[in-house]
């Protein structure tokens, strides 16, 4: 029995040969900055790891204030390789945010967001926000003391936003305080709302990347080689993914993700509560802003500043449109990017050491 009839059957319905032909034709630019192209694929791979390990965790996790901690404890101690799955899920989440930041800044500095890739950038920023929200909502799910109070502080900050703050706080918490209702709500966001949104935006993002191909920085436009996407680029991606699995396995085995102590709403907040590392630079900034700035509340000013920075991030492709025509503008944006990276790195280190 041959598989030819089956292949023909599929071919007739899916035009696979056309796809294969397109894949064969697809090429990736090869120049000194090509290394940055791998970070998008790495982020996508880590996202897939998140989906797979997340689904496995769902088999045992129970989203209620009474059971959440105990169920994670059960996963860590009783479920065969549960410790590995949970630790990989937590480590992979953090590595994903890291590769996402690297991916975003590489795109920023290479100006890969310029015409016609504006929407690729915008969907990428949406994915960044979704990933951070994934992290924030997932952090609470083990229902331990640190996550409980970090969520309290985080949602308190949301509550300070003028006009919509109070409503946002109640919406996030499912009431006035962080309770079991908050946990259920965050669980819903984490496993249903955010994955659905991420799938849509990821689909659009990847589709746009295929549509427009890889961007070539201006200085290499006249002089670059090409590499076949399939199999050359994809196999290099694959090597990176295999090594990423090795890194995740090593981190999970040597530094299993801590479970901590079960959250107790009536216990005093432990000293030195900190958010996840990717929020640290904002958290540290808010600490440095004085309580009052002229007649305004310092915390509100800080939060509005970060909201404005987020809004600017979205519209960068539309305000830095023709760098070739305006070289000064190009320099300003590069300088701003360098300042932003330095600021984030320095404040994160200070926040971590504080």
């Amino acid at each position, binding site marked *: 029995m041959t598989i030819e009839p089956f292949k023909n059957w599929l071919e007739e319905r899916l035009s696979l040969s056309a796809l294969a032909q397109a894949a064969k034709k697809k090429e990736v630019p090869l120049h000194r900055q090509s290394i940055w192209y791998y970070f998008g694929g790495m982020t996508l791979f880590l996202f897939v790891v998140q989906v797979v390990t997340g689904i496995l965790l769902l088999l045992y996790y129970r989203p209620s204030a009474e059971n959440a901690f105990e169920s994670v*404890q059960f996963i*860590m*101690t009783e479920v065969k390789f549960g*410790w*590995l799955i949970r630790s990989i899920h937590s480590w992979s989440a953090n590595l994903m945010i890291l590769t996402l930041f690297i991916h975003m800044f590489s795109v920023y500095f290479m100006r890969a967001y310029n015409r016609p890739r504006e929407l690729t950038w915008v969907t990428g920023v949406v994915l960044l926000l979704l990933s951070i929200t994934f992290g924030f909502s997932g952090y609470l799910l083990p229902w331990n003391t640190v996550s409980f109070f970090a969520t309290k502080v985080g949602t308190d900050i949301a509550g300070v936003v003028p006009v919509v703050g109070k409503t946002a706080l109640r919406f996030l918490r499912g009431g006035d305080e962080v309770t079991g209702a908050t946990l259920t709500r965050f669980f819903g966001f984490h496993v249903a709302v955010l994955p659905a949104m991420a799938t849509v935006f990821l689909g659009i993002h990847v589709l746009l990347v295929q549509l427009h191909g890889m961007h070539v920085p201006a200085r290499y436009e006249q002089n670059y080689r090409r590499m*076949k996407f399939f*199999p*050359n680029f994809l*196999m*290099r991606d*694959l*090597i990176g993914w*295999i*090594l990423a*699995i*090795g890194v995740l*396995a*090593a981190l999970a*085995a*040597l*530094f*299993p993700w*801590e*479970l901590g*102590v079960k959250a107790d709403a009536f216990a005093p907040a432990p000293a030195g509560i900190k958010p996840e590392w990717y929020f640290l630079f904002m958290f540290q900034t808010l600490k440095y802003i004085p309580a009052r700035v002229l007649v305004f509340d310092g915390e509100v000013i800080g939060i509005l500043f970060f909201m404005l920075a987020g809004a600017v991030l979205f519209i960068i492709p539309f305000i830095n449109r023709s760098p070739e025509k305006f070289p000064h503008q190009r320099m300003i944006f590069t300088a701003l990017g360098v300042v932003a990276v330095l600021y984030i790195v320095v404040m994160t280190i200070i926040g971590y050491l504080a």
Partner: protein
Amino acid sequence: MDYQNAKILLLATLLISFGALTTNAQQKSSCIECHIKLEGKIGDPARSIKDDIHLSRGLSCNDCHGGDPTQGDKTAAKDPRKGYLGRPRMADIPAFCGKCHNDASFMKKFNPALRVDQEKEYATSVHGKLLKTGNEKVATCISCHGVHGIRAVNDALSSVYPLNVAETCAKCHGQAERMAEFKIPTDQYMKYKKSVHAKALYDRQDLSAPTCNDCHGNHGAAPPGLASVANVCGQCHARQGELFQASVHKAAFDNKGLGECITCHNNHEIKKPTDALLGTAEGSVCVSCHKQGDKGFAAAGEMRSQIDGLLQRIENSNRILDRAERAGMEVSKPKFDLREAIDGVTHARVLIHSSSPAEVDKVVAPATGIAAKTYQAGVDALAELNFRRKGLVVSLFFILFLAVLVYLKLKDIERRQPA
């Protein structure tokens, strides 16, 4: 009634009320007015009465001493026909205070929960009995509560507030000269201050910790007799008392005329009990009666080794669980379970008052089982850690091998591809 009339009526009511209030506030007390001007002891009552609970409840000098405080003239104010009593004799003080404090109906107006048997109780106390014999050096109501600046018992500045009771008693009981006549020691306060009870009361500010009156009684203060010591301690240490009463020691102590709890734990200088008090080694209280070869000696040794054995197992479990935890293993559940074994030690320390190794074993055996289980959990966690590390080495080998294979394949493909 029209609006204008209503306004007038309201205004009138307010004025009358204000008038009544000011009249009450300015009620004349010629006693205070005159005595406050006098220097020395004669003026002290008028000066200290401002803090007095009786005054704050609307009573004044004349409610105890009689007389007419509305009279400005000294003779008229101190008119015996108006019930003026003057300063009561020491021997009459209990009855003097008892006039009101024995009257349940009267006292109900101020504090329905207040007892009204203080005078009766006082009569049963050593103080009260000696007072009856005419000895006026003993304590009466005012010796402890003060005279004119009497504060509520729950007022932290009161001389009978739990934190101040021992000092109040020591004012007299710490004076060797004063106590010589009664042939009682004067070191109780010094000893008490070193006790576990004083540490709880003063260092931890635990107001439920006992001070003098909790063991000796307050108004009926008396040293507990040998037979009643256990009842005194048993008020708080009920289980220990109950076990002792049912133990072989009860009859033995009675026969030898030994005080039940105090023989081992002392009375005023009750130190925090340690396991060193139990057993057959030097420093144990058991060896002061038991000698090698007798049953009690063996039982003391056995109970001590039961507790020591359990403590050792708990220590071992803690050590291995800490090691596993430091290595990143999740051991919070066995750590939580181990608390039950630690509770077992506390329970066993209570059960030694039964003087029965068999009774102690009823708690020690299951607690030892729990400690063993938690130790095994620690062993398993370390074994799991070892397995993970070995597994990691093997996995990394295959992962790297796979990466190298893909790399070689890629190079092979690229070699064949046209340049």
